[in-house]
């Protein structure tokens, strides 16, 4: 029952936002903070009780498979906790950062994006997943164009068109699946999929994975990402890279594992993940615009996470989920920090940030920590993530996996190269012109520092998360268990 509140409370507050705006113009910034705080507390309280037995929340008074239901399992509640954590940090940052435009609309859209993300990870019904995924996507189309400048609007149009084609393809996949099985409940489709053995199922899978893959930004479908993430306002870039992509990966994983569960397909998606990783890292290396560099790095990391999840062993999936968490935290810190640096120096080119490290020590230190964590240096969370991935991949048999691990390590080296270049620019180059130095307001530094503390804590004590990861991985992989939980 509590799981419904996780989705409905932010939704209701967002609907009420215009009414709040009539009362007072300044109250709008506080509402997402309150909503996300509420969600975070609820998720943390809910998590221990769903570790073993996922709660099935029935909606509309009909038990599955006849109605829609929410599956509050360890994966769903854990991801919603991550969403509310990152959402809380970015909303505190945005409270001080968003000062132009129609502010109440920004906060309402932001809250709706987060409730769409939470709904998508908690639902157990395929069409409901599509609807919440659309809530997420459409709010992000509007938010990318929020600042109203030329680049933002152009990238929002490209993102919108590609995203809409993707959602159209998802609908085609859903239509084919409904035509064959007569139900939209994911568990029920999973049961019946063994009975029908026809290539149409494979086509439905292709459509669904392609459609969800547009948001997850796997290789051929990620053309929108560098533009959208680099021209959006920085708090939105943080949310897009941190949360929206992850929900796309979750949707792909849920469709692949729980509904289809066909072993042969995993190899192809794994290869796609690897190609995405390489493309992302190589393109990031050649960028001068710092936000575009970070956006391509997100593409690379998505490839790494997809690669890890498609190893399809409990260790592999657990490692992929750990990397997902660590990337969400680090990329959020990077985008938030870089947002303030760019606001101070006025341009997004890397060379304009020469030597800024001495003037804004807090923010630059946070960015450096997050960058090291992404590369995978030891006392930070990213190291644990990559170590777990490599260990899980080594357990796979044969030369094939060793070659893949080699490619992963090569990509890590490239990543290290451009992040070190960033660190070098921040600290070791001399400033070319006098940059107007604004003191970082508390609303920016508190969330950044809080997330940095979490990154370090996760890096030093990765075992804190491991039991949750194991049950979340089991949730994803154990198809029979999922069906039994839902249908009894």
């Amino acid at each position, binding site marked *: 029952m509590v799981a419904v509140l996780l989705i409905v409370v932010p939704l209701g507050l967002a609907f009420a936002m215009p009414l709040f705006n009539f009362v007072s113009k300044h109250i709008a910034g506080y509402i997402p903070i309150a909503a996300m705080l509420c969600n975070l507390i609820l998720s943390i309280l809910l998590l221990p009780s769903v570790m073993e037995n996922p709660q099935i929340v029935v909606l509309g008074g009909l038990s599955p498979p006849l109605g829609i239901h929410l599956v509050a399992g360890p994966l769903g509640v854990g991801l919603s906790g991550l969403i509310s954590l990152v959402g809380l940090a970015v909303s505190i940052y945005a409270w001080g950062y968003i000062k132009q435009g129609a502010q109440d609309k920004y906060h309402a859209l932001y809250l709706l994006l987060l409730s769409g993300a939470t709904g998508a990870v908690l639902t157990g019904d395929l*069409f409901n997943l599509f*609807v919440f995924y*659309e809530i997420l996507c*459409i709010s992000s*189309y*509007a938010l990318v*164009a929020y600042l*109203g400048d*030329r*680049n933002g*609007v*152009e*990238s*929002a*149009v490209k993102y*919108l*068109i590609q995203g*809409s*084609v993707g*959602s*159209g393809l998802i*609908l*085609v996949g*859903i*239509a084919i699946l*409904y*035509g064959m099985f*007569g139900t*939209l409940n994911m568990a029920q489709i999973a049961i019946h999929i063994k009975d029908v053995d026809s290539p149409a199922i494979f086509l439905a899978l292709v459509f669904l994975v392609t459609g969800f893959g547009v948001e997850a930004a796997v290789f051929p479908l990620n053309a929108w990402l560098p*533009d959208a993430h680099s*021209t959006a306002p920085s708090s939105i870039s943080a949310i897009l890279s941190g949360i929206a992509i992850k929900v796309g990966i979750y949707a792909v994983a849920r469709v692949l594992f729980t509904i289809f569960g066909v072993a042969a397909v995993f190899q192809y998606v794994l290869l796609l993940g690897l190609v995405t990783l390489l493309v992302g890292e190589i393109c990031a290396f050649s960028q001068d615009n710092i936000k575009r560099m970070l956006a391509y790095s997100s593409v690379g990391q998505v490839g790494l996470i997809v690669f890890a999840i498609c190893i399809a062993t409990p260790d592999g999936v657990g490692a992929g989920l750990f990397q997902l968490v660590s990337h969400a935290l680090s990329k959020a810190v990077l985008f938030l920090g870089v947002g303030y640096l760019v606001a101070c120096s006025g341009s997004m080119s890397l060379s304009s940030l020469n030597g800024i490290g001495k003037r804004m020590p807090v923010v630059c230190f946070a960015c450096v920590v997050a960058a090291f964590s992404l590369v995978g240096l030891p006392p930070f969370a990213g190291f644990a993530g990559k170590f777990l991935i490599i260990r899980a991949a080594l357990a796979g048999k044969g030369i094939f996996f060793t070659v893949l691990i080699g490619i992963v390590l090569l990509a890590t080296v490239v990543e290290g190269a451009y992040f070190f270049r960033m660190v070098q620019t921040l600290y070791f180059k001399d400033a070319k012109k006098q940059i107007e130095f604004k003191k970082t307001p508390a609303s920016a530094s508190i969330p950044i520092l809080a997330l940095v503390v979490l990154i370090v804590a996760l890096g030093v004590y990765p075992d804190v998360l491991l039991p949750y990861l194991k049950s979340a991985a089991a949730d994803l992989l154990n198809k029979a268990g999922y069906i039994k939980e839902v249908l009894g």
Partner: protein
Amino acid sequence: MIVGLYTMLTKKNLIKVIIGLSLFETGIHLLLVVVGYIQGATAPIFSKTTGSSAEMVDPTPQALVLTAIVIGVAILALALSLAIRLHEYYGTLNLRKIRELKW
């Protein structure tokens, strides 16, 4: 649906691309409705003249299409507002010219 995709891929004017998007989505909605069709059955509304529930089409795809049409309208509204903004900035809606964001 294929006509919509073709329009989106080949036309240069943004408004034509948006119209192509609308055609694409309409095609998909029709596909969804067709999935629920049962030969010889009638609309799923009870009244004094209809027969039993055994001769009705599947109501679920119709509910799905209702939702999908609304989603399509929302995307179109947003796309058109973005087109208005783009026209203000660039003076043209020719997609070949709106390419400031390079590689």
